[in-house]
């Protein structure tokens, strides 16, 4: 009984995660700009991967495997925003501006000598 409920919950989590991952891939294809592509490839993909990993941890064979899958999920949760932030910062410092932007507060702060 409990195993059946766990299996159904795991498949619900996994199908939801696949939906988020596929919408993130469509966003990476369809969005017009580097920054919007970073947005699509970070938020939706982190959520989708976390959902799929949670579902996988629910039907893992042993509890050691479940702990290891949750460790991978925590690693994603920590590092994926970090890497996308690094990419966005590198894009800005390389001179790529967002399309249809009308205010640049980061550039003004850099001109005032604020090294962030």
């Amino acid at each position, binding site marked *: 009984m409990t195993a059946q409920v766990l299996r159904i919950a795991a498949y619900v989590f996994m199908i939801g995660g696949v939906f988020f991952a596929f919408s993130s891939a469509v966003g990476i294809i369809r969005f017009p700009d580097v920054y919007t592509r970073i947005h699509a490839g970070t938020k939706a993909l982190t959520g989708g991967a976390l959902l799929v990993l949670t579902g996988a941890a629910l039907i893992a064979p042993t509890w050691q495997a479940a702990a290891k899958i949750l460790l*991978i999920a925590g690693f994603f949760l920590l590092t994926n925003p970090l890497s996308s932030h690094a990419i966005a910062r*590198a894009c800005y410092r390389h001179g790529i501006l967002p399309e249809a932007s009308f205010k640049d507060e980061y550039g003004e702060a850099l001109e005032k000598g604020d090294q962030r």
Partner: protein
Amino acid sequence: MIQVVLWGLLLSAFVGFWRVVTGPTIPDRIVAADALSILLTTIIVVLSILFEKTVFLDIALAFAVLAFADVLIMAKYFEHGELHR
């Protein structure tokens, strides 16, 4: 049932790979490659559930760490044009 999850993740990976191939600028390719690395790590975890082999999880963890360092190095190289700064 778990094959459906696997094929969905693979389809997402192929759709994202199109941006790696035809990205107009370099950061587009870096973003798409980052997304691909996360999708491939998730695929390895689902494969370990499918085949019931726990060894795949260690491979997935090492691949996640290496992909993270990889993206950071690519971003730093793209920002400065060199690495030793």
